[in-house]
């Protein structure tokens, strides 16, 4: 049933072949075609601007007060591209191989190859837009190495690469808004997908200022709504990040693939109290010079500087001598959790490990460290009031990136014709673990260079369709359904606000569907989540009768999380192997490393919604490795 529509031919020819044979829409016909784009992050802004430039009529929506605030803005490190400016042996194939290996061989070869292939164009486009990338003194673009690969292919704009790339895309979008090609609605949240005759034909959105519901019709709908890591409540994501758009599309028939694969980032700031709302990320680059340790003695109460060298356990260096503190994210996070769970965690809540710069400062001098990480140390001090030049930082793992998302084929189309998913909201390119600096790349490439081609292939058949009628019964029904849900949430009038349930859900997921999972834990998590969902519909409190109502927005998102969380557990439970971010305790080597099972689990799990009270239905898309041979990832 699942056809990924991967073009025939050699790996390096597939995308070119596709582009040369795909259907096109004549420029004169494009103005007859409406496209809805939900989300204005890198993927959303890029596709909306690109389609606008080509002459399509685009409607773009975001829940923030302006398009420039989408959470792409917060990405720090950089963006990968195989320009090989450093002459250090980089190539499209090498980047492809690094990415597919980093993803633990759980992604499609053709998709990943295309990602690497289009990466160079992205740098050109961003520079032309005015993105101030880091330069060398001769004026050429500079690169840094990132995430444990052996070449320098990461382009960066200080520690604000995401912000600068997003501003480039945002400005391109604003230009199209001014030109009248894109109609932008900010403070609008998508609450339902409208499907007519099996095709995605529109959305129901709520105006977050007036509270009114609106119908918007189009010939295709693009979801570029980002990841749903916020489902863990405490995460590195923005407060508004949510899974509602993809979840509501899922309930209308779109499959969700590998939802349980969430990257837990190792270097975030630990939780300090019950009231805490988010965990701030500290760039991974800190691990280039910082050493991670915990005391050798359990429950050691001494301040870090009073613990002598021989009583410290540099557990990453101990377990992974080859990569040491630079092991990939999934492994570093898991090792930290292992120590914390064993009772060696530090800090008032015993939930953190030390990241120590004393050796680097001793060897390189404080000035050098300040030059490299000054802004991060300043941020650390702002948040914790601790000077990390004299005392080690406290860090702990935090939910960060969703490798899973809506299932899409090679054309980035979901299982609903006319519905596309771009960027983090789809599952496509990162397998079971995403490499650093690949997320900005994927979002941009999807939006600028892939979807504009692949969507034409679908839209070419829509030029005779004519405008979509929003009076169609499908719109009527969708709006009614949304209205009923909002009314229902407001009318429960229980005693707990949405955050209460969200926090509890997050706790269950961190414990049982986080860094390590077990069949018993996942089964009990499913029961816990079902109970929590039951309580939610009995005890939720939402203030009633206000147009602007943040609590109502949150309640809708938490309602979706309570279903999505259960699906994540089903997904993790059925995958009886350990791969990338997915670590099943039953499937590990004697020394505690992940055991992948290529014989039985070299497939993508795509889930179909079967109604609220039925377990989801699993579809398998087998992964074929024609061009690379899966190997065991070892960082020992």
């Amino acid at each position, binding site marked *: 049933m699942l056809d990924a529509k991967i073009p025939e031919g050699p790996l390096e020819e597939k995308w070119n072949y596709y582009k040369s044979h795909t259907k096109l829409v004549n420029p004169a016909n494009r103005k007859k075609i409406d496209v809805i784009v939900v989300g204005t992050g890198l993927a959303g802004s890029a596709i909306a601007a690109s389609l606008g430039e080509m002459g399509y009529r685009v409607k773009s929506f975001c829940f923030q007060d302006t398009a420039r605030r989408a959470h792409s803005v917060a990405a720090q490190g950089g963006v990968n591209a195989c320009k090989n400016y450093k002459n250090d042996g980089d190539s499209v194939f090498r980047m492809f191989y690094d990415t597919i290996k980093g993803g633990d061989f759980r992604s499609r070869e053709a998709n990943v190859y295309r990602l690497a292939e289009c990466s160079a164009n992205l740098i050109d486009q961003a520079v032309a837009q005015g993105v101030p990338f880091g330069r060398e003194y001769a004026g050429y673009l500079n690169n840094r190495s990132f995430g444990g690969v052996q070449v320098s292919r990461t382009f960066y704009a200080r520690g604000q690469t995401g912000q600068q790339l997003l501003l480039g895309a945002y400005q391109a979008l604003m230009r199209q808004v001014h030109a009248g090609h894109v109609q932008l609605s900010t403070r609008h949240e998508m609450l339902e997908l409208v499907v007519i005759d099996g095709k995605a034909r529109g959305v129901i959105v709520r105006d977050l200022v007036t509270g009114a519901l609106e119908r918007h019709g189009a010939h295709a709908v693009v979801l570029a709504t980002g990841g749903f890591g916020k489902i863990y409540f405490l995460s590195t994501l923005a407060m508004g990040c949510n899974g509602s758009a993809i979840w509501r599309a899922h309930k209308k028939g779109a499959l969700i693939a590998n939802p349980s694969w969430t990257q837990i980032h190792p270097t975030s700031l630990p939780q300090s109290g019950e009231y805490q709302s988010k965990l701030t990320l500290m760039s991974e680059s800190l691990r280039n010079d910082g050493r991670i340790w915990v005391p050798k003695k359990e429950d050691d109460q001494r301040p870090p500087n009073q613990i002598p060298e021989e009583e410290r356990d540099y557990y990453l260096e101990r377990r992974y001598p080859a990569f040491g503190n630079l092991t990939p994210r999934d492994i570093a996070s898991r090792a930290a959790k292992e120590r914390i769970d064993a009772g060696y965690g530090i800090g008032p809540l015993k939930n953190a490990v030390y990241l120590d710069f004393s050796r680097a400062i001793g060897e390189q001098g404080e000035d050098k460290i300040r030059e490299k990480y000054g802004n991060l140390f300043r941020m650390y001090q702002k948040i914790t009031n601790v000077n990390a030049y004299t005392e080690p930082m406290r860090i702990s793992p935090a939910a960060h990136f969703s490798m899973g998302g809506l299932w899409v084929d090679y054309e980035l189309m979901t299982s609903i014709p006319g519905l596309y998913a771009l960027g983090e909201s789809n599952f496509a390119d990162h397998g079971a673990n995403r490499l650093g600096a690949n997320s900005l790349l994927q979002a941009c490439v999807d939006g*600028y260079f892939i979807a*504009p081609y692949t969507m034409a292939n679908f839209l070419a058949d829509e030029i005779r369709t004519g405008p979509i009628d929003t009076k169609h019964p499908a719109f009527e029904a969708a709006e009614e359904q949304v209205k009923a849900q909002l009314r229902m949430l407001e009318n429960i009038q229980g005693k707990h606000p949405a955050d209460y349930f969200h926090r509890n859900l997050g706790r269950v997921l961190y414990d049982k569907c986080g860094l390590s999972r077990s069949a018993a834990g996942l089964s009990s998590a499913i029961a816990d989540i079902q109970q929590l969902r039951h309580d939610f519909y009995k005890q939720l409190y939402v203030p009633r009768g206000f147009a602007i109502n943040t609590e109502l927005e949150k309640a809708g998102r938490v309602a979706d999380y309570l279903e999505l969380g259960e699906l994540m557990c089903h997904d993790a439970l059925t995958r009886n192997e350990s791969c990338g971010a997915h670590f099943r305790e039953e499937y590990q080597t004697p020394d505690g490393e992940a055991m992948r099972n290529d014989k039985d689990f070299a497939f993508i799990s795509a889930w179909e919604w079967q109604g609220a009270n039925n377990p989801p239905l699993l579809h398998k898309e087998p992964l074929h490795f024609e061009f690379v041979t899966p190997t065991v990832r070892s960082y020992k």
Partner: protein
Amino acid sequence: MRIRLKIWRQESNETSGRMESYELKDVNEEMSFLEMLDVLNEQLMEKGIRPVEFDHDCREGICGQCGVMINGEPHGPLQHTTTCQLHMRTFRDGAEIYIEPFRADAFPVKCDLKIDRSAFDRIIQSGGFISVDTGQAPEANTTRISVPVAESAFDSAACIGCGACVAACKNASAALFTSAKITHLVKLPQGQTEAQERVLKMVSQMDAEGFGHCTNTEACEAACPQEISVLNIARMNWEYNKAHIMRK
């Protein structure tokens, strides 16, 4: 710690607002300012009072969505710090804290502390971009840009669009915001082709939105979380004057 809050409450754009007093016990000094508001809202809801609406998103100082007047200063008493990065340890036990929305006629209040900053979007729409369609870009390294130029363009591009500059200005001028974008783009060779048209359009849009004149008090720079320099305003003026003299 214990704090007393005076918060601006206004149900909608059409209604008038007033300051309301609340008290919070058991505030933890490790809390961020917005987490303190979260706790307040939970307590208000328990009492059946409508929670305080405020804008926020990333809570790590980069999205620019948060931003309120705290004790009479934009983003509060700590320099170069957004509201979300401000922590309660900045205040003493028993403190009285005034919280108001950023005020300017160009930033109408939507509800409580939420304001409409779409005027900034329209300024960018009028010309705050380099006109390059997807696919038109030449190879990136064909344009060399020296490190000092790239770095100073970055300094201007770092603006997060929070609106603190407008809130801080006695004239509610948007000169710092507008000039930061003009300067970012004009400093780069790619942005120079459209420099003249851009500055004329953006200044005219800035005026049309109802922002006041810049009288160079430099309060904007002091309030800016990203430390955007007022010299950007000088650069905007320079480009504007040049454009005026050179245009046909």
